[in-house]
């Protein structure tokens, strides 16, 4: 994404004096620290720490069928499995047992096909068939897994997903901090004298 306006965080960190006020001044140093933390976390490409290698591979394959990669990047390129690994080790830790058990059941379904040693190794057409089964028969797990994929796709990249803003780019959301009217097509003539109407 090319930004001719600063990002939300850049804006707050650098514009405190322009807007003034103790409220904003209090924010600036903390957000600078948050940015540093975010940069550090983006450099982290090491092994998964919460999910096992097989769990991570299966989750990644599942994510790749929920928001597939085609002519544009999908959930895998956005790093949702990296997000899941971190989230299940931190703020979603309470959900890890349910997700882990669900991944195990999905693994059993994969073995049951006799076609591959894991879900991740199955052909995508078979993966899709199994996902349809999981959605119908193991809805609680599917909901958690799908929600986690969407969280990883559409949360700030500090959490490990939405790498390069790919998720936000997919849905057409720009992460700027300041907008000016007009905001969209339908309010384009609403914010000042309409040029074609003369001096009414």
């Amino acid at each position: 994404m090319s930004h001719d306006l600063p990002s939300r965080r850049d804006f707050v960190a650098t514009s405190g004096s322009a807007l003034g006020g103790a409220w904003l001044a209090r924010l600036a140093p903390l957000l600078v620290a948050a940015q540093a933390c975010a940069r550090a976390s983006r450099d982290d490409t090491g092994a998964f720490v919460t999910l096992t290698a097989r769990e991570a591979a299966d989750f990644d394959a599942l994510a790749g069928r929920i928001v597939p990669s085609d002519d544009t990047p999908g959930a895998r390129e956005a790093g949702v499995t990296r997000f899941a690994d971190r989230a299940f080790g931190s703020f979603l830790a309470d959900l890890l047992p349910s997700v882990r058990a669900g991944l195990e059941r999905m693994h059993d379904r994969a073995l049951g096909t006799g076609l591959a040693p894991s879900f991740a190794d199955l052909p995508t057409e078979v993966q899709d068939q199994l996902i349809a089964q999981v959605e119908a028969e193991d809805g609680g797990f599917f909901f958690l897994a799908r929600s986690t994929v969407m969280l990883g796709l559409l949360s700030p990249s500090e959490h490990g997903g939405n790498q390069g803003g790919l998720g936000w780019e997919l849905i057409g959301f720009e992460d700027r901090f300041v907008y000016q009217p007009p905001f969209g097509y339908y309010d384009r003539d609403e914010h000042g004298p309409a040029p074609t109407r003369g001096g009414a």
Partner: protein
Amino acid sequence: MRQQSVRFSPSEPVDFVIVGSGAAGGVLAKELATNGFSVVVLEQGPYLTGADVDHDEARTYFGDGLLGTLREHPHSWRRTEDEQATPASFLPSLIYAKAVGGSTLHFAANYWRLRPVDFNERSRVGAIPGSTLADWPITYEELEPYYSKVDWEVGVSGAPGPRDAPRSRPYPVPPMPIKSSGVLLRDGARRVGLTPQPAPLAILSRPHNGRPPCIHCGLCWGQACEVGAKSSTLVSMIPLAERTGRCEIRDRSVVTRIDTDATGRVTRVVYVDREGVEQAQAARAVVLAANGAETPRLLFLSGSSQHPDGLANSSGLVGKNLMFNMYLDTWARFPERLNEYKSVVATQIVLDFYDADPARGFYGGGGIDARASASPLFWGMLDNPLDGMPGWGPAFKEQLRSYPYMMSAACHSTSLPVESNSVTLDPELVDAWGRPGIRVTYDDHPDDLAFVRFLQDRAVEILEAAGAERVWRAPAGPSTATAHMLGTCRMGDDPRSSVVDRRHRAHDVPNLFICDGSSMVTGGRGQPTMTIQALAFRAADHITEMARRGEI
């Protein structure tokens, strides 16, 4: 770091302890301190720093953001008293911020006033089976000066509309610039013969009271405002309260009970401080402003031999008559980009269906506003985003791309008071401070469902008249979550049928006042915060008079 203006000794009684610093508590703190009283505000959440204000939806809803965690704040939900309540396990069902400023930090800032009809609707429409609908003990005219006070002191943008209640002062600042969704709602509504108007919002369109205007960053709904343009009590009231030198905001102070003496009067408020140590603040009087779910819980936890069923509960109505306001989305896709993630939540509203009409065959009234279909995160997370559309795969990915082309005509409407709809103590859940979790029992009244479906039909007509490519209806009910918790300590003149009197004094306890969403006798048509704050300004006047006359 914030400079604490004053510190009071817990053992020395202050004039007032206020429990909660949100919509009502922030106003009461500012008013009572300004009127010369010593005030300690006990707030369970933190006094925010920038680290808490980052528009990070994952953190807000799933992490340690404004709402707190489900592990710290467990709560449960059931439809009827016969059912086992289900604990919230993924997203909270009771949505309110735990921080100084309370839910005014993350609200959408829609500031509708009630109208005269809201205050005497029981007399106008008669009894409704299954509902405890009652008239308020006060009128719109009595509350109007305080609505204007909210407009000017808290900061509300807007412009008079054809469906407004009478007002004594104009808005202090003009309405927010119209968004594409507002244009479409406005034009569609006019085409079907309705009378849309600008939405009043507690967000500044121009500098006011030393605060800056909105920079249109978006996602106001659910997130706090970085620049202080949203008129939370954190930026509008709390600084004024502290500046008096008579108000101490004690954050991370989780109240566990209110103690009473042998005569039944409250003497002190017991809380767990930020270090996890139990403390008690002595007080001449206590004001409960913790919200319509937390306030009844605290009263239940404060029983004594004089108050065996919970403090101030001789009526048996503490926690009962819980109301939410119905909410129902009507999604539509348009050919061009709206970009509804920008700027404020809503810029136009339709109030033509505000009044109940017996000819419909059911009770109800409400309004429609134009807003984003969802926040970016929830656009993806909606389980079955749009009826008939897939939830995964290539078609889902394609559907994700339609986000900037979407809007919702959201329906907001009445929810009738029903005595069995309630807040009680969950028998199993315990929160991080040893308090029982809050249990909600809620079954939508059939008239509430019938009316909101009626209103959605009107929303569909508006969107189609506006040129929508396609319209989707969200299903109506059953309610499974809420950010509006109303009516659980209702106001009234009769101690047998209400918890507080018309001045917000508990019928049973002369030095206990209750003022928040729980005081509301009816829930209006949506957007209750404006009324909660008008009630708080009014309560502060009455409490001040009583204190000065030595009547507390």
